């Protein structure tokens, strides 16, 4: 069976006033039906850029140099605008960080959900209204009839994110892309939101692509995790495997810098160096400048994938 979402060797740059930013290089990733895949990396690693490209929503300054994105067989990078618009919101939906600003501030939240349903379904009038209430109660918003009449500023951040999820799931999409969905929410709300996302995935066999900088969060909720660094995917593995046996030096450092219930502050290690400037000429392995295992061979192109275990691949000459 082919994957629901297949990103194949995608390379993408931004042409800016200050030079060309090589945001993604040779990125490949698949998401199967019902699967929750995490993409983890520091901010600026290109994970959000990849997510937007998957929706065909890349910035006007973005230019795809190679590769393609197939969603259920549809070529997302070359599809006609109306085909893309019909797919977005119905087949693939997205939720964002800072839910408060992601909702239209001067439109009632029920109306915003209705906008999506109006566009993608045949529900009208009372049936439409019932669907809106249904969507809100599915994400366990108490008193949905009343909340549907509220404006975003009248709701808490967590409640707004629930509305976002309700909106994203209103048309029962096959894929949900969640871009840092819990950033900016308090810790208890984070867990509630993530439990909700997982439950929705499980009950409706919806696939989820979770974009996050938090390896701990991804470890808790994902089936598989891809680690991104400076526009490259450097390692990809089933969650248990990745957490137990990280093969890429960057993944190991990322793990060491992630707090778990058993670590103390003293155990946490920060990753030395910073992301390379993506406008400059870059080495084959973009982590090499930060890596203590760097050897001359690392600088030879192309940088190959090494399969260290079934389903566990790493892009490193000297894996752990």
């Amino acid at each position, binding site marked *: 069976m082919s994957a629901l979402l297949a990103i194949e060797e995608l390379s993408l740059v931004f042409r800016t006033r200050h030079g060309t930013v090589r945001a993604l290089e040779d990125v490949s990733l698949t998401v199967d039906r019902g699967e929750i895949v995490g993409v983890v990396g520091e901010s600026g690693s290109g994970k959000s850029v990849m997510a937007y490209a998957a929706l065909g929503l890349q910035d006007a300054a973005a230019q795809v140099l190679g590769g393609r994105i197939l969603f259920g067989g549809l070529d997302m990078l070359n599809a006609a605008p109306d085909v893309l618009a019909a797919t977005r919101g*119905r087949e693939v939906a997205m939720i*964002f960080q800072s839910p408060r*600003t992601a909702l239209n501030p001067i439109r009632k939240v029920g109306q915003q959900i209705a906008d999506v349903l109006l566009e993608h379904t045949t529900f009208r009038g009372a049936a439409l209204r019932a669907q809106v209430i249904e969507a809100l109660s599915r994400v366990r918003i108490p008193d949905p009839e009343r909340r549907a009449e509220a404006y975003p*500023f009248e709701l808490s951040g967590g409640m707004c994110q629930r509305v976002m999820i309700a909106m994203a799931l209103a048309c029962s999409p096959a894929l949900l892309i969640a871009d840092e969905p819990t950033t900016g929410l308090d810790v208890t709300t984070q867990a509630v939101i993530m439990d909700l996302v997982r439950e929705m995935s499980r009950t409706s066999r919806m696939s989820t692509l979770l974009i996050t900088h938090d390896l701990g969060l991804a470890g808790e909720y994902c089936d598989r995790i891809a680690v991104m660094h400076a526009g490259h995917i450097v390692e990809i593995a089933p969650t248990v495997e990745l957490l137990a046996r990280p093969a890429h030096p960057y993944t190991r450092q990322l793990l060491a810098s992630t707090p778990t219930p058993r670590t103390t502050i003293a155990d946490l290690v920060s990753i030395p160096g910073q992301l390379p400037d993506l406008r400059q000429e870059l080495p084959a392995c973009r982590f090499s400048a930060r890596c203590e295992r760097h050897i001359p061979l690392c600088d030879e192109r192309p940088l190959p994938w090494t399969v260290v275990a079934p389903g566990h691949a790493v892009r490193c000459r000297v894996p752990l």
Partner: protein
Amino acid sequence: MHFFWKRLLGTIPSLIGVVLVTFLLSHALPGDPAAYFAGPAANATSIAEVRAKLGLDRSLPVQFLHYADDLRQGNLGNSLTTGQPVLSDLIERLPASIELTFFALAFAVVAALPLGVWAATRPDSIVDHSCRALVSIGAAFPTFFIGLLFVYLFYFLFDIAPQPLGRLNEILYTAPPRITGAYTIDSILAGEWGVLRASLAQLILPSVSLGMFALAPIARITRAAMLQALGSDFIRTARASGLPTRKILINYAFRNALLPVTNVLGMVFSFLLGGSVLIEQVYGWQGVGAYAVTAVISSDYAAVQGFVLTMAFLYVMLNLVIDLLATAIDPRVRFES
């Protein structure tokens, strides 16, 4: 509707301030109103008589109370030039000014909103650059100069506009029976379509010249607000939800951009009400502005004060309308207050 009353009450301090300022302008400033009202042939005794008659010999607070009481009774004094009560002079001419200002505003809004939206959806395109050029140039043209240029171009050179001599060519047409005082509305009510056509023809040049100056700030702010709205997170959400471009542009971006636009309307009305004085002068428009200019030149005190008071009152009310409009657009405003 509790909200509406609160806003209405909020205009009271402004109105008190306006009355106070017009009072000060006419009573507490250099120059002797008594000597002035007594006329050029007056001597000391007759001036003193006038002073006592006008109550100018009493203390300022007492004078203010009298002034306020006169206002309450609608007594703005008599005009020296027309010999009529100022109030009836103003009521007679106000519809003409309001009609002109309304058409100018309509022109400015109808031209500026699409222009600003268009420019914002195509940043750095030719449309965008021409919008910005038009905004800069429009802001630099004095209203009266635009008015005169239009007369020269469209009346003298191209001969497509009627003679700029007032609201109606009185030789060919007679004014419709007065109901509202606005010729366009009255001629519709009377069913006199020829008069309607003629009065609209007279209106076009003055209202476009007056509207030009208001066009610049509206287009400028529409463009900026649209750019900001289009770059915001909720537009990204709407696009990610597959909403059609038209709906995103109108229901999402434009509605949000309207709030800054309504906020600039206050300034626009200030321009329009001030500019209408100059435009009425250029086009021989028989409104309150032209009346006031005559009054100012001939030192007709009461008429000028009445005019200033009327315009300020109108402006305060317009600001109230703008406020209510902003509340209708943005629910947050209602909750902030």
